[in-house]
């Protein structure tokens, strides 16, 4: 049946999903590490685009923040995933994590955050110890309403990263992912990139392994008693079964 008149109305109403890459660009990241990060993040883009196009409830917007001596935004405004291209980052300087948290906090206040959104996702990649006073800045971030609701993931690159700081940031030790070589880094970055789709449509599987107590009614994903919400962190909806095993990757240089 030939129809020329299009049905009325517009697209399904959706909410923005702000996704932040926070990248440590200090001198120790120079060479192989920053190269691996650049390559890995760029390679997540096609799949993030595919996943976003499968999810009409969310508009995925990406931003990149880099920190070394000082911190700055690589993207001036949130970029829709379809328009997002990765520009390689360089590495030199120290590790001003605190300044990075401050910049992030400025973006997670209202405004510029809008009235309605999905929980933001922040992925922090770092290989070392902060060189500035990061504690106040982190506390500030964690107390912001949007800071509290954000899903925070950290990727600890190499053996020298301060995992305590990263765990403080994520609020959950399990969300500090270890990457000791390029292959592991790529897998961890890839896993972190899938957090966006999970946040907008929480995974349809049981989160907690049932302790065999038979009371399966409590096992539903959305049952809030089941969700481990450590203070300052967003409810855990990510599929922890899916995190790549850091030891289960090809042998390569260990950093």
């Amino acid at each position, binding site marked *: 049946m030939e129809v020329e008149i299009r049905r009325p109305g517009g*697209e399904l109403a959706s909410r923005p999903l702000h996704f932040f890459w926070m990248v440590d660009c200090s001198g120790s990241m120079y060479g192989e590490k920053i190269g691996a990060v650049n390559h890995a993040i760029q390679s997540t883009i096609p799949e993030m685009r595919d996943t976003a196009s499968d999810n009409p409830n969310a508009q995925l917007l990406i931003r990149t923040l880099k920190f070394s001596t000082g911190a700055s935004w690589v993207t001036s405004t949130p970029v829709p995933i379809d328009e997002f291209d990765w520009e390689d980052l360089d590495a030199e300087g120290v590790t001003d994590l605190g300044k990075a948290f401050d910049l992030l906090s400025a973006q997670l206040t209202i405004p510029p955050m809008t*009235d309605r959104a999905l929980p933001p996702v922040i992925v922090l990649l770092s290989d070392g110890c902060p060189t500035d006073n990061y504690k106040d800045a982190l506390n500030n971030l964690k107390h912001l309403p949007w800071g509290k609701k954000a899903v925070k993931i950290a990727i600890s690159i190499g053996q020298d990263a301060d995992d305590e700081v990263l765990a403080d940031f994520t609020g959950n030790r399990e969300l500090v992912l270890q990457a000791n070589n390029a292959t592991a880094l790529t897998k961890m970055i890839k896993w972190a990139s899938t957090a966006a789709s999970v946040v907008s449509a929480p995974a349809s599987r049981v989160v907690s392994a049932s302790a065999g107590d038979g009371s399966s*009614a409590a096992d539903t994903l959305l049952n809030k008693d089941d969700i481990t919400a450590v203070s300052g962190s967003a409810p855990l909806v990510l599929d922890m079964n899916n995190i790549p095993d850091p030891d289960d990757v090809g042998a390569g240089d260990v950093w």
Partner: protein
Amino acid sequence: MEGQLKEGSMLTSLSGSKYEVNKLLGAGGQGEVYSVTCGSTQYALKWYFKHTATANQKSILENLIAKGKPDKSFLWPMDLVEQGKDSFGYIMELRLKEYKSIVDLMKRKAEPSFYNLCKAAYNLTKGYQRLHAMGYSYRDISFGNLFFNPDNGEVLICDNDNVSVNGKDDSSVYGTPRFMAPEIVVGKAKPSRNTDLYSLSVLLFYMFMLNHPLEGKLEANIRCMDVFAMNKLYGTNPVFVFDPVDKTNRPLPGYQDNALTYWDLYPKILKELFTKAFTDGLTTPAKRVTENKWLDTLANMMSEIIICPNCGAEIFLDESKESLGVAHTCWNCQGVVPVAVSIQIEKRRILINQTTKLYLHHITGNYDMESIVGSISVNPNNPKLWGIKNESAENWTYIKADGTQAPVAPGRSVAIVKDSKINFGQYVGEFK
């Protein structure tokens, strides 16, 4: 994009067929999908991740493969492929590119006519009904699993590896939030045929209204839509956007406009079903709208579309308006739309325009909306005189208003005249 399987590698299925891995097409939470070739035919292969390649999943697949697909609308596991003890996958047909997903419908990238929209909704409902008739429950109805051809309303239901026997908890898949029945969201029940009926009603609402049935002002008021907020909105405190009594969740103008635009385009029979589904049906699984009720209503809607004589837009006949003497107004050009002549067979009414087809369901009520038994023909001596042509294999009898009868053999046409009747054999239809 690199997957678990290498391009060019060969796999042998349990039935002995050899498949060559071509390309990684995509990946989901449970596994990856590849295009593969067997002989000269291309298929799709779903390959599970290590942690989802469980013995339980394998036995589910073996059962599904043995039983076969419920009907042609399903993309179904055909064959099992193993590689050592660690991993396995299954073969299915490739989905052709004419099929667009429901996501595309939501994003206005696939634009079916109202007729084909109804047809797609009809076919999806019918498919799910067949699934239930086989004793299965679907469990994971969601945007990503469903495809339709906007040009003809044919559908494909995919991701059928989680289909399970009704009531038995075979796997860990519970559903996608907005589609999950409230009793599942709050942890009081597991997926079953009844929770499927809820998901089906959400799907139909989305397709017709381009809005979720529980997303109105209450959703708009939520700042951060996290899991706790979803729990409340879809589980503990669900309110239908057009609840006749509770008006707290009406769609917000400027944000949820689709719901406001579309609600009044549809006939009362559809609105009543949605209202039942999302008032009684929210809290009482036994009161959910059954597949047959949806099919009756959707078949009626498909058969009662008027084409606006002014602009060509599709208008749904609303019998409640007719009985009140209220005229139909075109939603596109605001012109008055006269109700054309129709034929009424039992409760089924078919409006007649040049492209109208009479289906077996129209005559017998057997839900077959594919087999054509009648079409419209134009009298060669008088182009203003239309008739119905007998496309079936049975003889019909024409009964004029004055009582005289005439046979209508297959291939012959009979004039459409008000108050005359056609005896189809089992049932009689009357022109109005």
